[in-house]
């Protein structure tokens, strides 16, 4: 039997039709490792191979499909791709035309982690400016963790050892598995509704990447970000970083460290208090000593120590007044003396004896009576004439009247 001879184009066209009509080839999910990834800008597509230990297949992914990925593919990455197989008629090669893909296995966690981290970082959920400070002396701390793990035990031990003054509310949650993220969100909600909690510790002991996964989920990150109380995140061991750690106000390497960050140390506080007290007492002593010295100085330097100083100014005033008094007294006396002299002079002009100096005489009778009437004198009477400087005894020889 003869078969019909076909052109190359017809063969490729035929195979293309078969591929296009095949249900499986049009709706494939393929797992493999990316290799030889390259961008071909003329065709707006990435080209790469997906391979496993034995085979490889050419892949193409157009840029518009690429944009919806939540990770950036790279060589060596294990992925699960979805698409269809199509033939390129020109050279008879076929390739997997990928419309979506996602990371596979542990790598998937890593990629999802980085993708969410980038997203939240861009949104500002990790911004320093949003971080609240951990209260210095919290009164009540909410602890969101498993009730069965070592974490809760470590936290209680450290808190009570460092600062037993604090009260602790534990909200038990499942820390791993599908329900964990929702339980954490509910716990944040419950604790933020209790108005006396002033700090929240979100804690979990060590575990595998899968175990720690709830702490890398977006809703947990947003619950931490929205929390009224400051949050310390302590998930896993020192080397484990979770999205919760980045969003939280503080990250502790371990639950033990979280508890130590949350409260001050009692012994250190006691020491501080003692120092304050010592300072207060010394301050008071200093104040008293300073006061005493000041008082001493005042007593020494003031009139209290030389009371006469009080009187010095009065002394001066008194002297002044004394002098003034003496002066006015002398003036007064002078004036009075002058007045007296004047009066004496006036008096002297009225002294009848003075008249005698001018040649007048006073005549007395024998019995010293003053004679002012010639009629009372008779001849032979003895009379006495008084001049200003002597007495003359006389005998009357004649008496005659004067007309």
């Amino acid at each position, binding site marked *: 039997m003869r078969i019909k001879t076909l052109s190359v184009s017809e063969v490729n066209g035929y195979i293309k039709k078969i591929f296009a009509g095949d249900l499986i080839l049009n709706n494939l999910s393929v797992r493999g490792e990316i290799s030889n990834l390259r961008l071909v800008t003329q065709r707006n597509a990435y080209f790469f191979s997906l391979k496993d230990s034995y085979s490889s297949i050419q892949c193409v992914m157009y840029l518009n499909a690429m944009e919806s990925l939540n990770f950036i593919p790279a060589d060596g990455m294990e992925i699960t791709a979805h698409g269809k197989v199509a033939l390129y008629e020109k050279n008879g090669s076929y390739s997997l035309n990928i419309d979506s893909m996602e990371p596979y296995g542990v790598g998937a966690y890593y990629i999802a982690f980085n993708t969410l981290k980038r997203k939240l970082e861009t949104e500002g959920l990790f911004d320093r400016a949003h971080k609240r400070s951990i*209260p*210095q*002396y919290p*009164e009540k701390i909410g602890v969101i963790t498993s*009730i*069965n793990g070592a974490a809760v*035990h470590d936290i*209680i*031990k450290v*808190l*009570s*050892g460092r*600062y*037993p*003054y*604090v*009260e*602790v*509310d*534990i*909200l*038990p949650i499942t820390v791993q598995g599908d329900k964990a993220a929702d339980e954490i969100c509910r716990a944040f909600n*419950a*604790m933020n509704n*209790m108005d006396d909690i002033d700090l929240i510790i979100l804690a979990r002991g060590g575990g595998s990447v899968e175990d720690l996964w709830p702490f890398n989920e977006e809703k947990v990150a947003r619950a931490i970000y929205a929390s009224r109380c400051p949050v310390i995140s302590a998930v896993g061991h020192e080397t484990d970083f979770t999205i919760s750690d980045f969003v939280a106000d503080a990250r502790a390497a371990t639950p033990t460290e979280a508890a130590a960050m949350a409260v001050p140390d*009692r012994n250190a*506080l*006691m020491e501080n*208090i*003692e120092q*304050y*007290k010592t*300072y*207060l*007492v010394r*301050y*008071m002593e200093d*104040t008293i000593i300073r*006061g005493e010295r000041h008082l001493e100085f005042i007593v020494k330097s003031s009139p209290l120590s030389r009371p006469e100083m009080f009187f010095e100014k009065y002394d001066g005033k008194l002297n002044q007044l004394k002098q003034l008094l003496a002066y006015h007294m002398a003036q007064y006396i002078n004036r009075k003396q002058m007045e007296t002299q004047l009066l004496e002079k006036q008096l002297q002009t009225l002294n009848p004896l003075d008249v005698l100096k001018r040649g007048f005489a006073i005549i007395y009778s024998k019995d010293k009576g003053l004679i002012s009437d010639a009629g009372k004198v008779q001849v032979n009477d003895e009379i006495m004439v008084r001049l200003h400087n002597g007495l003359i005894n006389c005998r009357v020889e004649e008496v005659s009247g004067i007309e």
Partner: protein
Amino acid sequence: MNEMNFEGSMKRLEEIVNTLQQGNLNLEESVNLFEEGIRLSNFCREALMKARMKVNILIEENGIFKEMGYEGENGEKPQL
């Protein structure tokens, strides 16, 4: 004195020491602050010495979380 809490007392004590360190106070003011400071430091020390940590566990009842005393894993007080 009954209404005092540790945080407020501690902060007030620090404030008093700072105020005294800055000086510029008259005798009466500094004596008052001194007395208050000594009272606060005694209160804070007492509070720390006497404190026994209270641990509650939050149990949900009909959508409301209630505090229950936490006795530790084996019904014992947590090892403090």
